[in-house]
């Protein structure tokens, strides 16, 4: 029997949970196809399918779904409502399966199990497992077991922690500052930072300029610590981590500058950006925010990074 081919678009939460999803489906005996890394054509395809002023990462996601859709049996677009209690994903992530269906014609079936963390943990898993088990005609118990093993680990690790070790961008990106070098902490959402096309390969460029790019990945305790500094718990999954990463970067003596990468019309980041700039940056560390959209050019980003790094070099010299 031919295995069912599950298509996963390489966009949005794939950059946080993709490896876990792949393991999950392989364990269930499915084949997994992931769309290739973002390129200009994929982005163009996404923009072509989009109506309205959706943000860059959503457009990119739709592009990935579009290039995948004809070569697979089922499109996997989970509905992540929250990965922690009293938190929410951005509304666009909550509506993602419906948005994808609305934007495209001739879609294969969309498998859209919901992940919504509630007080009752079994219920969270049950909700996620039910549609998957039904679709694959497997027993819920088997799917539950796979889910527990690969997906339901948000308790110990917040969004973004499942990032795979073999991620192409991971090589050369420090997880902590290196003494004696200029350390630039890059904060932002994984789906922007770890998409080489969208982020204009900025990790690489920072390295080329002789600085050490650092990507901090706050754990639960560090997030709690950051939330204690600000007046109200940031209730967006991911937004929260960006704030915590900013807090850690400002606190860490060895970090020389902070770059906040966000997409142009990002709702949560428009607020957390203000919080980071005004509330967390008490010591006035060099801070720059870069907003990306489909018109952003590599050169524009590079010029700003050069200027930023030159400025830090002058100040510290």
């Amino acid at each position, binding site marked *: 029997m031919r295995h069912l081919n599950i298509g996963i678009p390489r966009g949005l939460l794939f950059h946080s949970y993709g490896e876990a999803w792949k393991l999950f489906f392989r364990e269930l005996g499915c084949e997994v196809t992931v769309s290739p890394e973002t390129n200009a054509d994929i982005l163009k395809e996404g923009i072509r399918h989009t109506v309205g002023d959706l943000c860059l990462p959503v457009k990119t996601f739709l592009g990935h779904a579009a290039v995948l859709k004809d070569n697979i049996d089922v499109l996997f677009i989970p509905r992540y409502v929250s990965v922690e209690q009293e938190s929410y994903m951005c509304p666009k992530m909550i509506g993602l399966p*419906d948005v994808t269906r609305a934007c495209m014609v001739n879609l294969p079936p969309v498998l859209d199990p919901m992940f919504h963390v509630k007080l009752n943990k079994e219920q969270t898993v049950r909700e996620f497992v039910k549609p998957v088990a039904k679709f694959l005609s497997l027993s819920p118990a088997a799917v539950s077991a796979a889910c527990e093993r690969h997906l339901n680990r948000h308790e110990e690790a917040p969004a973004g922690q499942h990032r795979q070790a073999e991620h192409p961008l991971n090589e050369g990106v420090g997880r902590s500052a290196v003494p004696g070098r200029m350390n630039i902490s890059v904060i932002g959402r994984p789906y922007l930072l770890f998409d080489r096309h969208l982020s204009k390969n900025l990790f690489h460029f920072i390295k080329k300029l002789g600085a050490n790019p650092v990507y901090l990945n706050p754990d639960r305790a560090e997030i709690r610590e950051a939330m204690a500094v600000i007046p109200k718990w940031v209730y967006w999954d991911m937004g929260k981590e960006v704030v915590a990463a900013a807090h850690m970067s400002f606190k860490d003596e060895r970090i020389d500058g902070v770059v906040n990468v966000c997409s142009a*019309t990002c709702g949560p980041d428009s607020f957390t950006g203000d919080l980071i700039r005004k509330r967390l940056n008490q010591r006035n560390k060099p801070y720059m925010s870069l907003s990306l959209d489909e018109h952003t050019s590599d050169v524009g980003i590079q010029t700003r990074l050069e200027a930023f790094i030159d400025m830090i070099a002058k100040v510290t010299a």
Partner: protein
Amino acid sequence: MRLTVPHMGLLSTAYTRVLRQYGVDMQPPPAATVRTLNLGVKHSPEFACLPFKINLGNMMEALDNGADAILMPGGYGPCRFGYYGIIQEQILRELGYQFRMSTTDNPDRLSDMIDTIRDISRIKNRSDGYRVFFLILMRMAALDRATALYHYYKPREIDRGETDAVLKEAVRVIDRADSYAKLFRTMPSVKKMFRSVPIDKGFRPVTVGILGEIFVVIEPFANLEIEKKLGEMRVEVRRGVWLSDWLNDRFRFRPFRRNQTAYAKKLARGYLNYPAGGESIETVGKTLLFQKKGVDGVLHIMPFTCMPELVASTIINRISRDRGYPVLSMTFDEHVSEANIITRLEAFSDLLERRRNGSISRH
């Protein structure tokens, strides 16, 4: 303590007089003007949404007028609204304003609302708190009722502008009804006031359902008086989003009115299977409802960068294509111009009119 609360449609009319009776020193912000908007825009984050900016302008003008305390509802939704108060407070403090800020972190919970009322007023007794809160809710419902009558009479009026004058008077009359008894006596007279407007009885106006983000829908300043403009084009407005419905879904003060959110959720199934925050589910569900009910078209309005409504707008665009149903989405921000809005509304209402007369095909 002089307390101010940012404006949202007619809401301040519903509570100001009642709370004043119970010793709250209310200082409502002056009605929003271009200055309000400019103040808000100047100090807000670049991509903050329009309601945030207008609210901030409201707060600044009220503080300039002598208010020294701000009450701002909060929350923990996926929408940004829940975080408004925090960012606004930070901006105002940075500008050097001195004030006390309180937020109700759970505007969905009755007990929190009652505690807030007891906190700011002379009312110490819990049951009095309930009595006052529900009076405010009923007053809001009465104001919405008057607005709905306005929607009906406006496109049919014979003397231009008469219905606007009647609505203004109706709001004044409801405002003066500061007890349950007075409020119940007032409603028949409000209806009579509208009935006395001379109308063109045989005229069947084109109908447009208005949906979208609640602040932009109910605040005429934010939507450049879109309902009045449509009325003047002799288009009847069917509004799908009401503040009293929002309140009723949470506090059940009108037991015979169905829960609109739950209803919309049922209607939206197949297009939007889980609420994406804000009014997204209402927008999708009620677009389908309006089509079923024979409303000629849907006008969907939202602030620029509004996350939940972007989801909804994408989906209702598909509904429009699937079913050949006219839907127009418009985004509002500080750059929107009156001429732009009028042109688009005219084109849309012309389209609906011709479509109804059969001069253009339905698909």
